């Protein structure tokens, strides 16, 4: 089928045993056995770029290894369609966006085209994010179980956009959100499942010092100078300009360097514009390094995170903010805004420091740079927290449980 990807597994299920323990894997296998003969069809908008595709890239092969017939398809869109969905994305986050009736019409037109072109063969059809949400129209023809996974915070959305999307969402059997405060009141079942990181992926696996040093050398970074790193797409909602401002406040008193490293995604045309603004803001300051890294640079991202003294994530709005879990998994102290799913990952003063403003971010950075032992303790707690709650094996377990829950209404289910 067109727009279907067949992924080769990079890690074997058995490789996770030293990380999560044998009993957790046994539980996963027992759950997976319940899906014998069923197909889980996963649909989103892109195979590359962004947190969603990153999770699916690791999750689909693992589901297959567990014996679950999971297949991943993407819708076809085009530049104009993705510009519209980007506006939807920003509007759902509560930003003001000019969205015309032509935009809605284009969304409906592309949705209809995909409905005509795509095959819907799954017993469970699992739609991710707003771009393919309209595919639910097919439910009246084929039935089956339909799930909508919302990866973004829709607690304070643009009413017009939400109303438009809601008309599709209410036809699903259930919706999934990353945090309770992300959700909206809906007449369907709503589950809470946090996203996850893969501890064995290139982005999170252990690296030797040679690899880390070679990446630092490639980007002309000084290895013995404390490094503050923010990893995220060049997106206004990640507030890269705010990070530069906070860094300048810290740099007045402490010798350190800042790295803003990010990629691009095929469904986010705004990235290039923001990247130019950030470059301009950093101009002339040799301690600020703006790195545009392509999607396949996972090892480099990993190396930058491991080389960092502190990881910062000063988002103004956030879906879940997986870069936080990535940093915590590497036992790094984190300074992050208390938005979106970040407070679920950073328990203030236990697994990192939360902030609300540029000044607050600068203050937290100074605290951690001046107290390495405290920073180290936060990092260690953070790793435990991620191990318990935000690894891909737990995520898989939750998805399998949710698929099972669709057939039961009780609060206690005996399998």
């Amino acid at each position, binding site marked *: 089928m067109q727009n279907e990807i067949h992924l080769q597994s990079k890690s074997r299920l058995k490789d996770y045993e030293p990380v999560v323990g*044998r009993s957790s894997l046994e*539980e996963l296998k027992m759950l997976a056995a319940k899906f014998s003969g069923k197909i889980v069809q996963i649909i989103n908008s892109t195979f590359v770029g962004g947190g969603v595709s990153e999770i699916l890239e690791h999750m689909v092969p693992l589901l297959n290894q567990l014996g679950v017939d999971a297949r991943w398809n993407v819708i076809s869109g085009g530049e104009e369609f993705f510009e519209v969905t980007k506006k939807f994305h920003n509007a759902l986050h509560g930003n003001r966006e000019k969205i015309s009736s032509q935009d809605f019409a284009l969304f409906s037109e592309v949705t209809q085209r995909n409905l005509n072109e795509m095959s819907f063969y799954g017993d469970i059809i699992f739609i991710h994010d707003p771009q393919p949400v309209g595919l639910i129209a097919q439910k009246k023809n084929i039935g089956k179980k339909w799930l909508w996974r919302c990866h973004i915070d829709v607690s304070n959305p643009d009413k017009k956009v939400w109303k438009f999307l809601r008309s599709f969402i209410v036809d699903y059997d259930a919706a999934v959100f990353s945090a309770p405060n992300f959700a909206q009141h809906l007449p369907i079942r709503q589950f809470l499942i946090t996203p996850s990181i893969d501890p064995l992926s290139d982005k999170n696996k252990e690296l030797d010092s040679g690899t880390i040093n070679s990446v630092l050398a490639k980007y002309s970074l000084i290895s013995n100078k404390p490094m503050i790193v923010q990893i995220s797409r060049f997106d206004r909602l990640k507030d890269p300009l705010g990070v530069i401002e906070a860094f300048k406040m810290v740099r007045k008193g402490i010798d350190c360097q800042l790295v803003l490293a990010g990629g691009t995604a095929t469904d986010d045309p705004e990235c290039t514009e923001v990247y130019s603004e950030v470059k301009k803001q950093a101009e002339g300051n040799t301690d600020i390094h703006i790195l545009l890294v392509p999607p396949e640079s996972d090892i480099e991202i990993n190396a930058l995170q491991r080389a960092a003294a502190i990881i910062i994530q000063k988002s103004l709005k956030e879906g879940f903010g997986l870069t936080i879990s990535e940093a915590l998994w590497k036992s790094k102290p984190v300074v992050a805004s208390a938005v979106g799913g970040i407070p679920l990952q950073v328990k203030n003063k236990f697994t990192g420091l939360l902030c609300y403003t540029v000044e607050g971010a600068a203050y937290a950075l100074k605290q951690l740079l001046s107290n390495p032992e405290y920073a180290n303790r936060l990092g260690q707690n953070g790793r435990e927290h991620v191990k318990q709650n935000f690894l891909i094996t737990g995520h898989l377990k939750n998805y399998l*449980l949710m698929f099972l829950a669709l057939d039961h209404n*009780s*609060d206690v*289910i005996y*399998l």
Partner: protein
Amino acid sequence: MVDWLTDSWLWLTHNWLHVVVPLVVFLATYVVGLWVRRIAYRAFNRWAGGKWEGSQIVIQITRTPFIYWFLILGAFIAIQISKLDSAGKILADKILASLFVFSLTWVIVSLSVKIVKLYTGKVPRLQTSENVIINIIRTAIAVVGALILLDVWGAPTTPLILLLAAVILIAALSFRDLLANLYSGFQLAQGEQIKVGDFIKLESGDSGYVTDVTWSNTRIRALDGNLILVPNSRLVQGTIINYGRPLKKATRPFRFYTRLYLKELTGLTASNLGELANMLKEVPDSVIYYHTHHFLEEHHYLTPEPANDFALWISDELGDEVLGEKLASINIFDFLSIDALRSRIEGVITDYLSKKPEERTAREGREFHFIKSVSFIMPTSYVAHDLREFVEVLRQVSIDSLSYHIFEARLKLKKGVNDFAIWIEECLDDKDLAEKLAYLDPYNYTLEGLRSTIIQVIEKRIK
């Protein structure tokens, strides 16, 4: 015919000495043989008769051949002093040597077989391998005997020996693991270090009861019911803990279950204390359970003292630390049902509101979301038949399994006591241990701390 007889008589009358002397020597050797056998067997009987049970076998097998060997010796001496030409003597020597080698081979084979049977009959684990051992010994001795016979008759044995050595070398290399296992099996058999019925723990962490020990491997019934086949060489070379014989068997085995949970939004939210108290009356039990227990699993590494979500929200979001503290200090272990716990939480809030009616409201987006836990309960493959197995399984099960049997069974499934205590009392009739586990307040520990504490309590009992 008459001529031939006459010629023979004439030859005898002229050479009678050449016939009589060898004959006398032959008979004399026979008599000496009888005498030597008597003396030697008597001495052997005195030396080994009381000490070694195989002595009668040696006597029984060698008694007759012993005389044959003296007859062969007598014939050899007689031929050497006779007037036989040298070619005849060489041929006779070869025949006698062949007879000797043949009889000696037969004696060694018979002796080995009887002695092997004597020992394998005493060690049950060796009985299955008896035929294999006997055949190996028979073949080895027969090959050596055949090589000696060939040498006696002047056949070239060096290439054969080389070929045989090569075959043995190749076989030894190909079956080196098997040989190592056989040797280790022998060591185990000798030392009786591991016996059927022992509970052992391997270096790999696998543990279970030994169900069979053969020459090459040892079978263990693992805690998840699987059979583990361990090569004997691994047992001899590695570190194993042998806990010895089984403990008292339970009247019914303990099947470990696990509970996985999924968070589901109820759609209910509260912005202030009044709303919270009202909602508390209505929400399902699974909501109360979730908000008083999820911290245990999600943040169990941080603190053994679980804060319930109501207390945290009131302190952090409404800024009322006094009420927050009152709620946080509710000891969940004091309650045997969720309804009772619900009434207490709601009662504390209502009472507080009646004395201090001023209401604070949470910021927008910081409302209290009522979440329920949907529990999925399923059996694991782990089963314990006694306390030893129970402890070993407890080391391996996930914290989900531990939570299910300790927290969920007691409160959400309304059993009032944790599953472990119930099983130990009902199926092992150990009231004392059951009581200790029943009164252990699990809310005072981190989950891993709870696991080790339960293990310690039971291990103390086992010792």
